């Protein structure tokens, strides 16, 4: 069972990395010529700006020239969307963790003396923490420029970053301290912080 959980977590991590790769690849394939663009200076912000530059897109493909503004459809896979889906996935895993049967829950006796901690609750909890960490990392990578301390902590993006990071840390702490008592509180608080972070910028 332990090996199975490890395998699931590894598979989830690989999927997340792949999703980010697709997001980058999608931007690049559609409208970005990084090596030739004078606006690309190596950071994420200039990458986004260069992606929006029709001149560089035309240099790569004539496809962009035929796209009239009225026909504009935002790309499905972008770095922003990848961050959004990771966050929503985290919330889904938090809900699944709460609803999943806890190890040691015994409604009909006789109950076993030694509790096996493996099971869906543990798997969902670990997945939630992993996704939360990936969400926080992707947020700092792709939305770093939205965070401005001079706007104060009540700025929606600053608050989003603060609560999201706190939520991810609390979830990781919960997984780390499980199955000891108190980990449920940490996990729930982490989930609430993550939910609030999402709501603030939803």
């Amino acid at each position, binding site marked *: 069972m332990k090996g199975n959980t490890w395998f699931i977590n590894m598979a989830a991590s690989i999927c997340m990395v792949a999703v980010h790769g697709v997001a980058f690849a999608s931007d690049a394939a559609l409208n970005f010529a990084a090596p030739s663009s004078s*606006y690309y200076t190596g950071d994420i912000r200039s990458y986004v700006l260069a992606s*929006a530059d029709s001149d560089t897109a*035309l240099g790569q493909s004539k496809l962009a020239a035929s796209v009239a503004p009225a026909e*504009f459809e*935002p790309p499905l896979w972008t770095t922003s969307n990848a961050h959004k889906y990771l966050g929503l996935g985290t919330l889904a895993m938090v809900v699944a963790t709460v*609803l999943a049967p806890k190890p040691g829950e015994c409604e009909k006796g006789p109950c076993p003396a030694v509790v096996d901690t493996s099971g869906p609750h543990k798997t969902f909890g670990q997945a939630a923490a992993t996704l939360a960490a990936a969400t926080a990392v992707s947020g700092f990578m792709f939305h770093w420029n939205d965070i401005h301390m001079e706007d104060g902590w009540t700025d*929606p993006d600053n608050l989003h970053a603060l609560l999201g990071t706190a939520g991810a840390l609390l979830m990781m702490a919960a997984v780390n301290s499980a199955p000891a008592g108190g980990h449920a509180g940490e996990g729930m608080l982490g989930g609430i912080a993550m939910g609030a972070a999402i*709501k603030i910028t939803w």
Partner: protein
Amino acid sequence: MKKRLNIGALFAAALLLGSGPAAAEESFEGWLLNFQRTKEVKPVSNKRYQEECGSCHYAYPAGLLPAKSWEKLLTAEALKKHFGDNAELDAATLQSVRDYVLENSADKSWYKRSRKIARATAEGEAPLRITEVSYIKRVHRDIPEAKIKGNKNVKSLSYCDKCHMQADKGVFDDDTVRIPSQD
């Protein structure tokens, strides 16, 4: 088991509450219990405003400026010299347009980008141009001049809809930006 069902029922109830067309930006409770996206700026929803202002320029969503700016911009006297043009409106139309923008200004809105604009303009003089809002200046500062002023298909940051492909929907995020070619 019962506890789990209760949690599930609460979650479902919250989703149901939020799925309705709740008044997203009218109150904190309305915003909190609403699951509609309010990440950007509320799009223009007033036909008269759209017609009167949009006939000459892009009809800027009211949430792009704070109330104190709209109060200065939309007076009979100010409209006689509206950025070099006479944009006078009859009294009834002016009142209607003014009421609409004041009700939906950045500092009255729960939409995220409007909240950021409201914070950025909370202190100091009321900006009379969208391009004078410090937040808007900041998010555009990395764009080379050649792509805006030097681009005959854009000319100025004030032509939001030249690059923001979904500006009419109040969406101004990076994913919907396409800077027009200079050809």
